[in-house]
């Protein structure tokens, strides 16, 4: 089989590719942050044993953990608006789906980090007269965070990969731009190869950094 590789034409699409990369990274950062907040809330309430708050939250988490992100994206974009009577833009639907999907996994990581802290630390903080919030902020979280960083980074890597599903809702992420360029140029081989390379170039340093961090924290 003979094929003339030629990446040169992609230069004229550099703006599209730039926008796509920005969307991919932007959505990752945004949904990782909101997912972390959701994860914290779920983890802390589920640990606080306030049943009427924690039970629905835990159920919600299970729903997001046990269904594919793609199904969640499609459901939130097409089905949720019918239920609540509010039209959602693709970006908003994508933001909701990815935040909660991430949050579902973050909550388990955070919960694990918190319960790994020795009860003696809680006792010591309480004995000083600390209230719940200060105890979390000053004593438990700083120690728990150290344990959580490696799995949180791994989850962020997955989160970035999952943003490629946004293309299904026509959110102009990296993959979606690739599809646009392909349909304009009929050169899928170069285009998708380049898309894959860009993902790799973003994620490889991230995973390297994660393992360096892990090794350093383990010391």
């Amino acid at each position, binding site marked *: 089989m003979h094929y003339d590789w030629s990446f040169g034409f992609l230069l004229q699409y550099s703006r599209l590719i730039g926008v796509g990369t920005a969307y991919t990274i932007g959505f990752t950062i945004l949904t990782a942050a909101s997912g972390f907040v959701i994860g914290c809330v779920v983890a802390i309430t589920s640990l606080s044993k306030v049943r009427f708050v924690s039970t629905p939250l835990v159920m919600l988490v299970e729903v997001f953990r046990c269904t594919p992100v793609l199904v969640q994206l499609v459901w939130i974009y097409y089905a949720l608006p019918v239920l609540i009577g509010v039209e959602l833009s693709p970006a908003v639907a994508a933001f909701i789906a990815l935040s909660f999907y991430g949050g579902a996994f973050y909550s388990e990581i955070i919960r694990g980090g918190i319960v790994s802290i*020795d009860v*003696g*630390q809680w*006792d*010591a903080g*309480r*004995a*000083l*007269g*600390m*209230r*719940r919030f*200060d105890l979390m902020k*000053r*004593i438990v979280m*700083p*120690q728990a965070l*150290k344990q959580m960083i490696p799995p949180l980074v791994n989850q962020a890597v997955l989160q970035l990969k999952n943003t490629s599903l946004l293309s299904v809702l026509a959110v102009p992420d990296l993959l979606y731009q690739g599809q646009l360029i392909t349909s304009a140029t009929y050169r899928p081989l170069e285009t998708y190869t380049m898309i894959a390379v860009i993902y790799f170039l973003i994620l490889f340093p991230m995973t390297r950094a994660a393992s360096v961090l892990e090794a350093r924290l383990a010391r």
Partner: protein
Amino acid sequence: MSIKEGSGPVSDVPMIELAHVKKAFGPVSVLKDISLRVPRGGVVALIGPSGSGKSTLLRCLNLLTIPESGFIRVGESTMDFTNGHKLPADRQLAAFRARTGMVFQNFNLFPHMSTIRNVMEGPVTVLKANPDAARETALGLLEKVGLKDKADVTPDKLSGGQKQRVAIARALAMKPQVMLFDEATSALDPELVGEVLAVVRQLAAEGMTMVLVTHEMAFAREVADSVVFMRDGVVVEEGPARQVIDTPRQPATRAFLSHFHSSGLQPVAANG
């Protein structure tokens, strides 16, 4: 600290008062109707076999363990758990605990903070003290426990005895009305026990009101004013330290103390 106020005419009002305290963990009744009074400046040693409820009783004194029923007063703070009272809110519990200092068997220093930050943590976070002033106080307390030169190291660089002395300084930084020691020397290598007991001895001499759960009978006999012997969640015998340890009245107390006569107790008894 509470020493100065203690020498006044109010000293006949007990600093700690506990009445009809009960606690069960599931079906196991750990404290069965305990009442206890500790005078201002008094030092009480709680002794007894493991599982006797002495640590639970100590933890009830600062509400780290919440009793099912009973009445607890430490200084001016009271908590009433008699029937019909709902569980105290987080804020009330915190305020109550802030006035007592507690030292744990496993030190429980905050590993992510330097020694001096450990000592400053209570005043700065709970009492909203000025950090510079808190640092000064903390340095003074570290000096008092002989560890001023360790102010900027993290706890993992300290020996067990040093950790426990920092833990004592951390508790003292809150200017507590009473100090509670939960087997403060049980996790230490034998050669490190002395340096911690020396600090406790000094606090006793300064008039600090203290309750100690301890297995150091010789020390209890020397430093405590009174000894409370517990078994199976009840107070079996209490009285002046020397009397209870040297000439226990109850057979259960005698049986328990007989385990100690061969070890630490005898030499000190000979000196005393």
